[in-house]
């Protein structure tokens, strides 16, 4: 099985200002039929509802068998993922290795 695609999110604030650009960026990357994405959110300090919407649309775009693992989620991002229950759909991982294992499994 090939490696999942790794997306380093470089925006410290994933909000309405950067969401459209970020969306285009990730959409292009998953458009080739990729079904497993490893999202590195280490750089993200803040995410608002629009940023969150992009992650959800990414998941939906990949269809039913798509899987997303998240590493580097800080407290604010983690709280948002828990509040919206996205933590039940995304694999929240402590390290990249762990995330790769999860995506492989």
């Amino acid at each position, binding site marked *: 099985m090939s490696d999942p695609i790794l997306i380093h999110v470089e925006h410290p604030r994933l909000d*309405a200002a950067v969401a459209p650009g970020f969306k285009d960026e990730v959409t292009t990357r998953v458009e080739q039929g990729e079904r497993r994405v490893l999202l590195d959110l280490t750089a993200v300090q803040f995410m*608002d*509802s629009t940023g*969150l*919407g992009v992650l959800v*649309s990414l998941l939906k775009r990949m269809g039913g068998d798509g899987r997303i693992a998240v590493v580097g989620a800080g407290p604010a991002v983690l709280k948002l993922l828990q*509040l*919206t*229950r*996205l933590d039940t759909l995304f694999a929240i991982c402590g390290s990249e290795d762990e995330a790769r294992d999860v995506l492989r499994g």
Partner: protein
Amino acid sequence: MDAPLTANAMDAKILPAAGDILRALVVDDDTMMADYVALELERLGCHAETATDFDAALATVASGVDMVVTDYQMPGRDGLNLVAAIRGRDRADKPLHIVMMTARGDEHVIRRAVDAGVDDFLYKPVDPLQLMLAVASARRAVHLHRLIQDRNAELASAHHTMRDALATLQDDIDAAASLHERLLPRPERLPWVRVAHVYKPAASLGGDSIGASNVGNGRTLFFVIDVQGHGVQASLDSFHFHHRLKQMRPTSPDELAAALASLNREILETESEIYATVLAGLVDPAAGEGWLVRAGHPAAILFDGEQQYTVEVEGGFPLGWFAGSAYTATRFAFGPGARLALYSDGLSDFRNRDGRELGAEGIGRILTECRGKPIDSIGRMVELTLAPRNSNPMLADDISLLVIEPDLGDRPLA
């Protein structure tokens, strides 16, 4: 020069456009000279008049000309005086090209003339070729000036139109905002509870909505909706979701959970990317209980008269994300003395001047501090906490708070 100069192909670029004929005035105390220059100007496609003294010249300029060709040396007030007088009453919006005729050797005059506002010089005796060049440059200047004037007029008119459109738009937005405000809980229609609220959209229109309505049997429906984004789209959606929830009029916990599930389906059917987080509840003060259903929204805080705690509600996904999302109602105690606070993350994420986040804890603290005081004091204290925001117009998010408490009046407990 047999053929008129204006017919030369070389002059094509300086040909007057229809309605663009240069109106020229020739000023010289020597009438022969004035007539000669005027005639040459006519041959160059200008409409030329003559004047032989200062006063006559000024009068003609006042009637509107594009170009003045004046002699320097004239008895009484000379060409320099004339130019100064013309420029003195110049209207910035009227182009006027001034050419001065001087004798060779009058170079010392030229500097003063330029300062007075002369654009071009002709040496006497006037050579037709020199005159043609002067006219060409006058025509170009006047043409450019008129072009700029037209553009300016267009811009001014466009600006006007935009300003009017903007004013209309602002009126519409204000009207929409006031419609939204009217959705806010109305205490007089809520016989079983007392409510307080704080509602501060980030812009004139927000995506938050606060609702409370009497659904009969002593039960009150209430909710806070937070639609993703701000502005018109979010506001319209939140307005709609607000109405749908009230329309569905859930009167039991199961109906409330079902109402959120239907709204979720309805939003998905629109195939937009809009989504909303909702915390909705029902309270039955006479029975001393209530229920909450959560869709991706921050949990409510309950103050039971003694202490505050978060009402843990398992909750489902925000509305509009996934088909088949399930929601369940969680019961909580809502006896006398209880106060329940619902809020949007705009409030909990609010940071004061020191950059400290208010948090759910901060909201809980305010509930505790207002113990024993009328419910309105909570709203006032929250407003006070938010006050520094007023000095910072860059508000990050819509802010909503709804506090609800039982109001049994003289009614007996069940």
